């Protein structure tokens, strides 16, 4: 049991479309949602779950829309939230962007989807690739009635049979995001790598794939403990991967969905040297000016290069007359974000750059204190993974016996990369 009804509301709380699944709660109850949300927000007690005597609202917000689910029971709330996000994802795949306008433009399909995604509060088929095979936007021609794709109820519910490509290809992207939290004294409080292997699969038929990584657990169990390997702390797989097989012998085997999807994600808690390190000296002269001295250091191998490096430095909201000086890149003041952005298109390893900024401050100070947002860094380093993870092989077996080529790309980028300031 999860949802009694699902509503999509605009930012003011007006119902754009709704669907009642269980009929145990008066649909009018939604009138109470917005006032309650405002009230909680004012009290500073806002949570994604709001309780009223009649029911519980759980909601997510996206693109100025509220997706709200109601329930009267002790629902599996984790399921509700994951499902609400799934709805947004499915609709986004249908209409590019889920927003007020696209809902009005596609209400017939949305009703159909809401009918197929969930039944009596129990989520059913939520794979948009498969849904698109029998729920389409164009409407059906009178003569041919759509049939349910076999996949809907198959054990392989994410791939239809009979897919054909002239050229069979697979693209693998290994993307590692580095999360970093450092305090103002320059100590790293927390650093972790969140990796993801994304695939674009253009393969015919029902191919069986097997992916080999330099996984430490696997290497140790097969007596290759000496080779360079990576210890994956926690791995999460797309539903196509056979989990019990992985649990048994660490084999990643699967029949992939067609097209683009995320095969797996992993997390490592290793302490790596921060790839881009920022030192900041901020001198505030109250009522007159504030000066910044920002030093950026790249701490990875010289033969790698970080692209599109953006260093976002927060500045006081009432700062004025910006002046910048830098040896490389460009600096922009974004008053709407209360920040300056220092952009360096290409930042080779083992280098150090400097930037100075100067702002005037008004003589009258603004009353409300401002927070101390951290400095954030964005970057991309191609052909490089921090963890050292490697794709050793990707075997593709299909009964027709075609040859398919896998292409692998590695990239490291920033995740939640925050350095606190004084």
């Amino acid at each position, binding site marked *: *049991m999860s949802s009694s009804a699902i509503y999509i509301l605009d930012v003011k709380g007006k119902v*754009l*479309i709704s669907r009642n699944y269980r009929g*145990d709660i008066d649909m009018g109850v939604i009138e109470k949602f917005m006032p309650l949300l405002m009230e909680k927000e004012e009290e*500073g007690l*806002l949570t*994604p*779950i709001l309780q009223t005597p009649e029911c*519980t609202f*759980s909601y997510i917000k996206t693109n100025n829309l509220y997706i709200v689910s109601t329930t*009267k*029971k*002790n*629902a*599996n*709330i*984790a*399921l509700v939230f*994951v*499902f*609400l*996000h799934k709805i947004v994802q499915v609709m986004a795949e249908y209409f590019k962007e889920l927003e007020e306008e696209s809902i*009005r*433009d*596609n*209400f*017939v399909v949305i*009703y*159909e989807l809401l009918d197929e995604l969930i*039944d*009596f509060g*129990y989520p*059913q*088929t*939520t794979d948009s690739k498969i849904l698109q095979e029998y729920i389409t936007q164009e409407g059906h021609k009178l003569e041919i*009635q759509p*049939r349910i794709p076999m996949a*809907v*109820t198959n054990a392989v*519910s994410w791939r239809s049979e009979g897919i054909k490509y002239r050229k069979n290809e697979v693209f693998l992207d290994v993307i590692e995001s580095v999360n970093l*939290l450092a305090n103002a004294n320059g100590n790293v*409080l*927390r650093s972790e790598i969140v990796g993801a292997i994304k695939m674009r699969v253009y393969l015919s038929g029902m191919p069986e794939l097997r992916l080999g990584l330099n996984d430490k657990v696997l290497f140790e169990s097969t007596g290759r403990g000496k080779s360079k390997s990576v210890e994956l*702390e*926690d791995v999460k*797989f*797309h*539903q196509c991967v056979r*989990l*019990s097989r992985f*649990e048994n012998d660490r084999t990643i085997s699967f029949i992939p969905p067609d097209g683009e999807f995320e095969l*797996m994600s992993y*997390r490592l808690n290793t302490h790596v040297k921060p790839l881009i390190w920022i030192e900041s000296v901020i001198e505030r002269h109250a009522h007159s000016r504030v000066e910044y001295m920002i030093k950026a250091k790249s701490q990875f191998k010289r033969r790698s290069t970080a692209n599109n490096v953006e260093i976002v430095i927060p500045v006081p909201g009432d700062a004025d007359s910006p002046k910048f000086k830098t040896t490389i890149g460009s600096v922009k003041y974004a008053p709407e974000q209360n920040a300056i952005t220092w952009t360096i298109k290409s930042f080779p390893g083992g280098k150090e750059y400097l930037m100075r900024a100067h702002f005037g401050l008004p003589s009258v100070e603004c009353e409300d*204190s401002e*927070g*101390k*947002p951290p400095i954030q860094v964005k970057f991309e380093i191609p052909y490089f993974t921090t963890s050292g993870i490697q794709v050793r092989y990707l075997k593709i077996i299909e009964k027709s016996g075609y040859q398919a080529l896998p292409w692998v790309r590695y990239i490291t980028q920033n995740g*939640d990369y*925050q350095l*606190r300031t004084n």
Partner: protein
Amino acid sequence: MTDSKYFTTTKKGEIFELKSELNNDKKEKKKEAVKKVIASMTVGKDVSALFPDVVNCMQTDNLELKKLVYLYLMNYAKSQPDMAIMAVNTFVKDCEDPNPLIRALAVRTMGCIRVDKITEYLCEPLRKCLKDEDPYVRKTAAVCVAKLYDISSSLVEDQGFLDQLKDLLSDSNPMVVANAVAALSEINESSPTGQPLVEFNTNTINKLLTALNECTEWGQVFILDSLANYSPKDEREAQSICERITPRLAHANAAVVLSAVKVLMKLMEILSGDSDFCATLSKKLAPPLVTLLSSEPEVQYVALRNINLIVQKRPDILKHEMKVFFVKYNDPIYVKLEKLDIMIRLASQANIAQVLSELKEYATEVDVDFVRKAVRAIGRCAIKVEPSAERCVSTLLDLIQTKVNYVVQEAIVVIKDIFRKYPNKYESIISTLCENLDTLDEPEARASMVWIIGEYAERIDNADELLDSFLEGFADENAQVQLQLLTAVVKLFLKRPAHTQALVQHVLSLATQDSDNPDLRDRGFIYWRLLSTDPAAAKEVVLADKPLISEETDLLEPTLLDELICHISSLASVYHKPPTAFVEGRSAGIRKSLPARQGSAEESGTAQPEATVIPNQESLIGDLLSMDIGSSIPTPAVSAQPTSNIDLLGGGLDSLLGGGSGTDLSAGSVPTTTGLLGDIFGITTTSTMYTPPKACWLPAEKGKGLEIWGAFSRRNGQISMDLTFTNKAMQAMTGFAIQFNKNSFGLAPSAPLNIGALQPSQSLETGLTLNTNGPVQRMEPLTTLQVAVKNNVDIFYYACQIPIQILFIEDGQLDKRVFLTTWKDIPAANEVQYTLNEVKGTADTLANKMTHNNIFTIAKRNVEGQDMLYQSLKLTNNIWVLLELKLQPGVTHATLSLKSRSVEVAAPIFQAYDTILKLV
């Protein structure tokens, strides 16, 4: 071309226009019209008047049109029940359509139309669809049974749909299995009797575990959630389920992961805690829980609320993961607050430095609520991690220096708690606190400050001036500040009577004459009378030692915690309330409790010693009078919630019906009244554990008229001392309290003595629940227990003997092989023999009798005509005792050999054997 054009027709006579369009002969026109109707419905216009015209469009081969008409029907059938009947024929026909999509659509929609007349016609098509050749139709029909049950449970039961649903659990298609299991779980939850209608057995569980590997992510959640309701019959089955579920922890869907965590947490109760398997499992749980913190913020919030429970239940799982709970700048506030809570729970001596520096950082942020909570967290760390107290205090002082008003106020509130926890340690900072007196404007902070001044009046030179300055605005103060002021001034007077008489008179008159607040007036009068009749007594009352405050604040009560663990990932786990608290009526479902290992009561008791301190009578009074800064004082988490009564009954019922899952009743610190309730239920379930008759422990002549009879008993794994107090004196007795001396088994009362006043010649019975967490000291003989009972007359001492069988715990059964190896391992020097006389009955009846007393027979052998019984038992202090009982047919005496690493326990155990065997 978009659908938005359908919304634009707002001319007059719209309904009329639509009507004619709906009746148009052209299919295309019809479809357009229906879309317009649905568009109007979507924006909230009432288009029910078009009911017959729309239903007329139902018979079409256009699927899109059909779906729209069905949607219309679902919305308006209830308001037009009579006309809805027009649709029945089409529905029934559609259920036979060659296209499975249409069959499923029809049966799905019919289930959603809650009109009696339609429901009647639903049964036949539903029965067919449940056996449909297409799995898509079957899986839809499975859910439809749950829909029908919601409308009419009797119809489902009478028409045999439950059996059909049960058959679907063996369906070849995993999605059908998943939906069938979801429907069955829902039906079980809402069963009117509170008993599940369909019980799962090992066989079905195996089928579910197989389907688990193949069905969709949502189906996996349904299956895992229903597995969570299943109690395996033994440890081996539990372990094998765990093994098959663990791979789910690597699923990308957070709901699958959390549901798997729920099942594992529940099954770990059954597994023996010290096994390797359990340890590995614990280790496997941490990484997925941590990864949940990288999901969407709403999912993070649910995960954090659940982690809060998991950390309380099994602190080991995440004890090394403190850093992942550090707050990020852009976390939503609800995530920040929850992370803070967990940081405090995980704080320990090992990580306190990091935690404090984080908390200090948070205390300088801008969000007021978050900052306040961070400051409070620093205080809680000081109380929880004693060696860090000093650092916490200095951090708080730093924060006070910032002069940010709400930070200062919050800091003062927590410093008051620190003073209470560590008296006479940090008073040097009082002067700094006093500097901020003027800036305090929140009642709680003011009251705390006043309390500090009163408590340390002798060290603050100008305490009288300070308090005097507060008195000027006495009438405008908040009630809690007024109460504090009154008490503080009285304390000041008692400590420094010299120049404060005028002040105390002033405050007493303010409290008793100028106030309308009855609490304040009463307290004023009490003080007044105390001070005027007996200043020495006043001193004893007002300046009494205060009870210690507990380390862990707002821990959940253990039984509630156990129940919530069974509800991981559900709303209950987010609210931290049992479902009965927010779900109405029968749909609240059956109360869930963790499965019990045999006799796990003691284990859980020793594993999580309650941080409660039982205040003696005086300090209670002292507490009542001088402390009422209610919410901020961390009080020991004793169950006193109104809901717990209901729970208790529920639990009792469970054990009545389920046959002995009595842990709810006996776990943790249950107040005496509930213990009694437990007894009532207990009597019906547990059979005769031998309880000796009451003996006179304190004769009236020694007790100055107080006579005590008593006996020990053990019910449902709970030891209690049943006492009868009789007053044979001429005057009423009051102020009863009981204390035990240190004893061999660490027996101690779990709750204070529940006896108020005892009138002359009155007799009162009470049950005192005991635990074995008290101080241990070897007594001679081993089973001696020295007891002190106090009342208003005097203190009386007596000693009694603990019958050792009450210390035999319920999981004293050794595995055969373990028994053998242990028997061999224990040196022969530790073997004692004893001859039992007057043994009657066969080996089986004896073994049976023994089992009732927690002496477990592991094996029985017949060697040369002699019956050999191998038995084991375990004492509350984890001493294992292995026994071999040799019975000869036709002979009334038997030989008992005992082996144990602590052979001292032999004598009382032989005695226990004697008593038990004599029972009829």
